């Protein structure tokens, strides 16, 4: 299974999905013109990964801005990982926020309310 590495643009985030390390990072701005088109290949990739997952999996969000249509896709990625977790695998979500960005922190807390997966809400300042 190949890595996915996509460089950031002014409206799409940087994507770094590494199946060997079990590390999946989404960072920057997520305002794609068509969020379904952008996230569908990532969800499919994650679906394949879950058939033969690594010892541990971490989905890491380091976002600056996102639109609400992206949030539904974030939740789908989280739910994919939640399935692994419920099967007894080691899986975690790390949601980073800027200290001054209360909304970003709350967005992470919202996902926490919607998922049984361990979701760590972390300040970028503590990185």
């Amino acid at each position, binding site marked *: 299974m190949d890595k996915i590495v996509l460089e950031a643009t*002014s*409206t799409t985030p940087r994507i770094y999905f590494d199946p060997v390390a079990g590390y999946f990072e989404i960072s920057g701005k997520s*305002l794609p*013109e*068509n*969020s*379904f*088109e952008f996230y569908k290949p990532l969800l499919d990739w994650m679906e394949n990964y879950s058939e033969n997952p690594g010892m541990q999996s971490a989905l890491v969000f380091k976002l600056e*801005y996102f*639109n*609400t*249509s992206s*949030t*539904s*896709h974030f*939740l*789908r990625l989280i739910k994919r990982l939640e399935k692994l977790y419920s099967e007894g695998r080691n899986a975690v979500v790390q949601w980073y926020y*800027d200290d*001054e*960005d*209360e*909304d*970003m922190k709350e967005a992470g807390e*919202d996902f926490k*309310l*919607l998922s049984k997966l361990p979701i760590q809400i972390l300040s970028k300042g503590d990185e």
Partner: protein
Amino acid sequence: MMYDNPSISASGNNMKDSVAALRQYQAMQKDGLILSYCGTLTHELMTAFLQMADTKLKDLQATKKKQKNIINVLIECLQNVMFHGDASKGDQSAPDYESCLVALGHETGDFFIYAGNFLSTASAKQLEAKLEKMLPLTSEQLHDLYLKQLSSGEISDKGGAGLGIIRILRESNQQIAYSFREISAKAAFFSLQVRISS
């Protein structure tokens, strides 16, 4: 650059040009507008508008929290007017209905976001009903609704189940005003004003 109206570019009309610009300048000043766009919106133009707004807010030394609030509201407003301006569908006689207005204003510490677009009468009715239902909700109820809609997974290419509107309401502490004006039997113009205060 090509001009549709030769009288505007003619050198003899320089004076008229500057007067029109001055009038425009004064009107924007009076309304506290710092950025405005009128016309058909594309993804590229949306990105450019957001970048200009971002720079402008930094220049005005808006707090980081306010900058985030405003950009988040702008993101949803821009996407709403871009994706939901559907009045011209099936009505070839009205190509201008794809046009919209987005503006950012600033007045005594508060920021205003204005967004306007044409909608089919049916879409306008749906949106009005949705807004009437959401506006009286408390912030906790809005939060619950947001979580419910988000977890329902109802999304499309255009966005998701009114999540954008809920976000606008939450970011502005429900300080919004709106109106629908009938333009024809098939179309209405939706005006939205969002206030981001300290």
